[in-house]
């Protein structure tokens, strides 16, 4: 039996010590009429050799990024992951360790997470970061809950259609049984118009949630939007692309109160949607309302600098129903990967990645929109992603044609935006070469 260490003699010795004749006696407290009287109906057990062949067969039925040219984005991206990130995450003292509740046994994790928290504040310009939430969408929802608690305004939350649809769906779910009005402002021009926001916020508004660059890849006018939120006494929550922060002005320098992000781009594989990394950072005044774990620096009894989980009274294991959130297990290993990624890239590396994404996306945009069959949709500056319209409306056919040539050309938007059902969202990362982009244009025109 795999992974079970006992010999029959040992089992017997243990039963003797317990004073039981059979292992079955140890299950006496399970009433007989509740016991399963058959074996579980599960597929047959496989040894390592067979399991390997089985999984290899299943993997072969997928088309991973290495076997295609991917221009898919919409919140998950084919970015370059340096080998050093995989190396660190593969060390089993990291990946088989537990939550660092016993500080003396976990200084490695705690220091790494303290470094992660610091790196996130350096990247975003905010005062403090937590040690991770589940993903960008749930982080955005948690940020809104935070704002509701902090402002004590329960009336309204304002967001925009240019925020990732799945973030907004998640937020709506989190707000279902809380008596809060979720207002979603339309963005027909591709971004949220400041005067539109100004008309929508009032003294019942707990927060404004925007994404920058937004779901369409367009840059929002964050400074103006932040100002409007501030004037109304609402908090400004912005969801960002961490890769963009190699180039764009940091949200902390643009008036954000809470910043959330999807950290998948920071050294984490796309992995069919998870596990991902919910990044959250906020202003100092809000730290006691922030969900998730926090690592703090202190000294030990001998005066030595060390790290501990702190402000744990916010968390569920102490606060219980009054906790800022119910989160327990987070995404610790992915935060570690992100820390290694950011440290490996450094300021110049992050700037390089961002510039390459910007320029390559621009080249792709130019190449695509000069084709007769395609046209631009939004007249806004974009980063890494953009929307194109298929003039004859036959999006699915074009995507299929591209796929048969080994190109995943983009994400069709019709499933979320009926008014854009003739459009697709194209993402270009630093991994895409000029010739791949040329192939994209040829495959889809």
């Amino acid at each position, binding site marked *: 039996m795999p992974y079970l260490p006992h010999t029959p003699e040992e089992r017997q010795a243990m039963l003797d010590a317990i004073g039981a004749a059979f292992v079955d006696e140890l299950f006496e407290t399970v009433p007989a009429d509740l016991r*399963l009287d058959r074996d579980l109906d599960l597929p047959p057990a496989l040894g390592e050799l067979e399991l390997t062949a089985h999984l290899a067969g*299943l993997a072969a039925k997928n088309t991973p990024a290495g076997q295609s040219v991917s221009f898919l984005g919409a919140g998950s991206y084919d970015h370059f992951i340096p080998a050093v990130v995989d190396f660190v995450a593969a060390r089993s003292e990291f990946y088989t360790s537990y939550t660092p509740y016993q500080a003396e046994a976990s200084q490695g994790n705690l220091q790494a997470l303290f470094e992660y928290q610091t790196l996130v504040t350096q990247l975003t310009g905010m005062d403090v970061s937590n040690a991770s939430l589940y993903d960008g969408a749930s982080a955005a929802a948690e940020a809104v809950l935070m704002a509701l608690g902090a402002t004590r305004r329960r009336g309204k939350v304002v967001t925009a259609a240019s925020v990732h649809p799945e973030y907004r769906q998640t937020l709506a779910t989190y707000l279902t049984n809380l008596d809060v009005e979720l207002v979603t402002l339309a963005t027909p021009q591709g971004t949220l118009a400041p005067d539109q926001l100004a008309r929508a916020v009032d003294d019942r508004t707990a927060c404004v949630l925007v994404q920058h660059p937004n779901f369409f890849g367009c840059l929002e006018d964050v400074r103006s939007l932040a100002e409007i939120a501030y004037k109304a006494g609402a908090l400004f929550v912005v969801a960002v692309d961490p890769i963009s922060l190699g180039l764009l002005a940091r949200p902390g320098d643009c008036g954000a109160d809470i910043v959330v992000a999807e950290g998948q781009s920071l050294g984490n594989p796309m992995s069919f949607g998870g596990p991902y990394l919910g990044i959250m950072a906020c202003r100092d005044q809000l730290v006691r309302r922030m969900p998730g774990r926090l690592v703090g620096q202190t000294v030990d009894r001998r005066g030595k600098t060390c790290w501990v989980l702190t402000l744990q009274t916010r968390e569920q294991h102490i606060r219980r129903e009054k906790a800022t959130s119910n989160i327990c297990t987070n995404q610790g290993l992915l935060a570690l990967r992100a820390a290694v990624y950011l440290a490996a890239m450094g300021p110049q590396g992050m700037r390089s990645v961002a510039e390459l994404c910007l320029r390559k996306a621009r080249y792709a945009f130019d190449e695509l929109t000069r084709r007769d069959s395609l046209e631009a949709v939004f007249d806004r500056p974009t980063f890494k992603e953009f929307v194109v319209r298929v003039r004859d409306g036959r999006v699915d056919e074009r995507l299929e044609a591209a796929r048969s040539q080994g190109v995943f050309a983009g994400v069709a938007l019709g499933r979320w935006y009926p008014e854009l059902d003739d459009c697709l969202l194209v993402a270009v990362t630093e991994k895409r070469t000029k010739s791949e982009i040329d192939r994209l244009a040829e495959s889809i025109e």
Partner: protein
Amino acid sequence: MRNKQATELLFEQSRPGCRAVRLPGCDVPERPLEELLPAEALASAPPPLPELTEPELVRHFANLSAQNMSVDTHFYPLGSCTMKYNPKRNERLAGMPGFIDLHPYQPEASLQGILEILHASQEMLAEISGLEAVSLQPAAGAHGEMTALLVAAAYFRDIGGNRSTVLIPDAAHGTNPASAAMAGFQAVQLKSNRDGRVDLDDLEAKLDDRTAVLMITNPNTLGLFETQIARITERVHDAGGLVYLDGANMNAILGVARPGDFGADMMHFNPHKTFSGPHGGGGPGAGPVAVTGKLAPYLPAPIVVREDGRYRLDFRRPKSIGRVRSFFGNTGVLVRMYCYLRTLGAEGLRRASADAVLNANYLLSRVKHILPVPHGDRCMHEFVASASNLKQERTTGAMDVAKRLLDYGFHAPTVYFPLVVREAMMIEPTETESKTTLDAFAEALFRITEEPPDLLHDAPHTTAISRPDEVRAARKPILIWSREQG
């Protein structure tokens, strides 16, 4: 032998001009940035991240990893965490490019392998739980709890009735009441009786037509099977409520009893506990949820379905509560779970539970001579000892014992939980530990209880740091490095 210099903070080792990663030059026209983006959108300087070279980074993190205990290096008897062995073949297989390099919005035709794994996982969890429908979307156990409670709320909204309360035993994990609050319910506490189980009289007193859900952990956090579970679930159903099983302790009853068979309407699994997923220093985990047929329509979308031999993502779920996160779920964790379930099979799971319970009872039989185990001589996969007498007689409580165990080369058990036992030490050995390890642990525990109190008060002595000042950390939180602090 410790390398103190390499474990200095990254920011202290930073030297201007260093970098580890160099990307290729730009092979498309290099238009000036000002042409592409408005000036006010650009930062005036790159983010102030530290600058290090690759060898320094490797040495830094490799040394940090050596400052952790982990399942691969130490016995970790943390109650309700199920720190069992993390199989290496699962790491290798789940890490294949054919799984990790998949975009969530790829066309389904290019995802048939992963969809097959996820579909099979749904089916296996349904079988193990004894329930009909499964969602793999939640990212962790607590997330699963919240999801299931939202499902319950949607169900009650649909059928009518003003159900506003969730009953939760006082011994429950803190995520239970926290999840109830997030789902908009009011948490009502249930008392435990003298033998640590749900007090049926208190349940009767608190059940009424406002009761939406009873959340129960079975076996409970004291490691005891709720022998009256059938009666409990029957009473809740009579009152029109639903029963939610917190599946954190499933490791005791795999293939033995199924929550759906003993009256649960909903449950979550913790693949990073029961199904050998690595804990990652705090995550990632996953929190798949299983429910009865009548609750299935409310589960988050999508679910993987199989039609004409092809796998699809089914989004047509009009009664769904919506999403609780972006994209499908923590697929990487679920692939590891799949590998584990395919490795063990039905008999393997049953044997795993049998050995988990055997190990816990054996350890109990030895520990009870050292520290009182208030709730009796038998347990399921975990038990709770109390250091309360030790504290009174020698001034050394659960925390002191926990810290001293580190010196003996064992990670401490869970301490101060559940709240219903004073100076609690919750011990769960799991089935992948040998008798030799269990004996060594018991021996260490015995020696510790005989040691001079001061030795325990100042423990641990052999770790790099000892007794961090948590008061200081909470009063004046230092949550990031800054140049001024240094």
